């Protein structure tokens, strides 16, 4: 019973141990009631209830006023496998493209402006590099998940 989750870009392996009719990990344990509700006992002895729902590959967990979104990584895969394609996080319209293929960019440099949720969003380079391709132009509608442009690391 080992599962891998992506937490803030890092992969975490969670190995569960069966214990007293529940499952435990790092000294914390959980039981599940007939309705699928999670009752937790933390390592410090405190207890609480968690709400959990899976959407796509992501487990959403709420406990003690906090919400966690934990992406489950299929066995063998890694969350580090994402390429350097810059992906539209939501559907929208391209307002401006500020770079073209072959341009070199600094970390933080704006490359594209996307309109979505009635707001303008600026897509900036996460690191210095060379623009390999720009897939959309001003006025184009883009779907969520569309690769907007591709950036190659300078190193």
């Amino acid at each position, binding site marked *: 019973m080992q599962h891998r989750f992506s937490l803030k870009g890092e992969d975490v392996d969670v190995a569960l141990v069966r214990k007293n009719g529940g499952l435990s990990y790092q000294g914390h344990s959980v039981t599940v009631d007939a309705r*699928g509700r999670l009752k937790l006992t933390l390592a410090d002895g405190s207890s609480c209830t968690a709400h959990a729902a899976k959407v796509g590959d992501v*487990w959403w967990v709420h406990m003690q*006023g906090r919400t966690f979104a934990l992406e489950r990584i299929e066995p063998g895969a890694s969350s580090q496998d994402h390429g350097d394609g810059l992906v539209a996080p939501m559907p929208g319209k391209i307002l401006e493209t500020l770079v073209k293929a072959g341009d070199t960019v600094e970390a933080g440099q704006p490359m594209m402006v996307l309109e979505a*949720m009635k707001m303008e969003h600026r897509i900036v380079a996460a690191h210095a590099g060379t623009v390999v391709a720009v897939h959309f132009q001003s006025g184009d509608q883009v779907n969520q998940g569309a690769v907007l442009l591709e950036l190659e690391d300078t190193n």
Partner: protein
Amino acid sequence: MEKVLVANRGEIACRVLRACREAGIQTVAICAANDAGSMFPELADEVVMLQGDTIAETYLNQSQLLEAARSTGAQAIHPGFGFLSERADFAQAVLDAGLIWIGPSPHAIEKMGDKMTARKTMKAAGVPVIPGEEIELEDEAAALSALEEAAQRVGYPLLLKASSGGGGKGMRAVTEPSGFAEAAAGARREAIAAFGDGRIYIERLLTGSKHIEIQIIADRTGHTVHLGERECSVQRRHQKVFEEAPGPTMTPAIREAMGEAAVAAAKAVDYEGAGTVEFLLAPNGEFFFLEMNTRIQVEHPVTEMVTGVDIVREQLRIAAGEPMSCGTVQMRGHAIEVRLYAEDPANGFLPSIGPLAVFCPPEGPGIRLDTGVREGDDVTPNYDPMLAKLIVWAPSRVEALERMRRALDEFVVLGTTTNVAFLRDLCDNEDVVSGSTTTTTIDDTWPQGWSPVEHEALTQAALLSAAAGETLGLHRPSRSGPSSADGPSSPFSTLSRRFP
């Protein structure tokens, strides 16, 4: 007034539709195709589906709305907030069509909706205004260069605002000349996109001030009253997120002076209905007129909770020609509203989308939820990412904050990233606790942006929960149905209760 068309969507449409139902008034909702599954049309007696894909083609399309009113026989239109609520031309078109406009006259909207005219009106009423200028030029290049010149006269730091704007759209703060050109171009583009109007207003940015606003109501019998103030200083990027009444540092003297100024402003334009006059309150007690919103306000519930006045119901009464029902207004206790957004506060407040797989609001005494969504809905990029307004009331400010903390801890939203944790952190913020917030509190507190405090044990417990869910297959649909496979009880016809 027997049938009202609500020319809005989402949370405020729900608020108005419910108020109409309570008042015994028939309702018509208008609804874009991508809103067909939303909650608000379910609360209306009739629904008119709008043609078109964009907001301009649907909720901003005056002729479609007027046609919807005509075809359904609605006698009045309630515009809610945003959309066409502050468009004098629409108010006029509504009146020209022989309908009741639930709001002030087109003249009042124009006078107050236009920031420059409003400033003049307030100056005439003896209320100080913030130094500033407006640029009306249509030509892009000319407008930008005129803006640049005006900026030099007004001085830095300054604020760019869409003249016909609201809700932080088309608004930008500029601290020094080097950032001005890009900010001005962006503000203008956004203003045109959002309001079809590229006029930009520049004003001096007063730091360290509080945002205080006065709710007023005026009816046709000549009564104009104010319902006290709301403090809405806590803003992130000019978007209010935490609003309260009364203002924690308000004095009776300032309240009286501001209230008088607000009533004077309303009277100056023969105001009718509900409206809000916004002020900046400087640390020295001086206040400056900011603008007047000639419509119901997002944060109206906090005033309702402390005064006991149902502002939307009063709007309906006043529009029907009746006198307002609230007499001498008295504030009681303390109310706080927070705005729950589908956004990622740890990532520059970027709007988020996704399904509301779980949407479970808190319950109990002193809690009010105004929302337009429910579990199972999808948050889409089509509209504003505000999911709900959570409002609490308690006898004192301290207790209201305690209640808000409890309510936010209980609020479960899974499937879409929200700002709940950020709002919860706000409740522990030193300035919020002491009531000494200003319009820059959020930026001052989290200059590098907000991120949640790490809590290793809870993170591990969350991982455990997810892993347990995966192992036990809690995500498989068979677990999510009703828990009991039993049928209902057999018919009870052979039984009767024994006593008395």
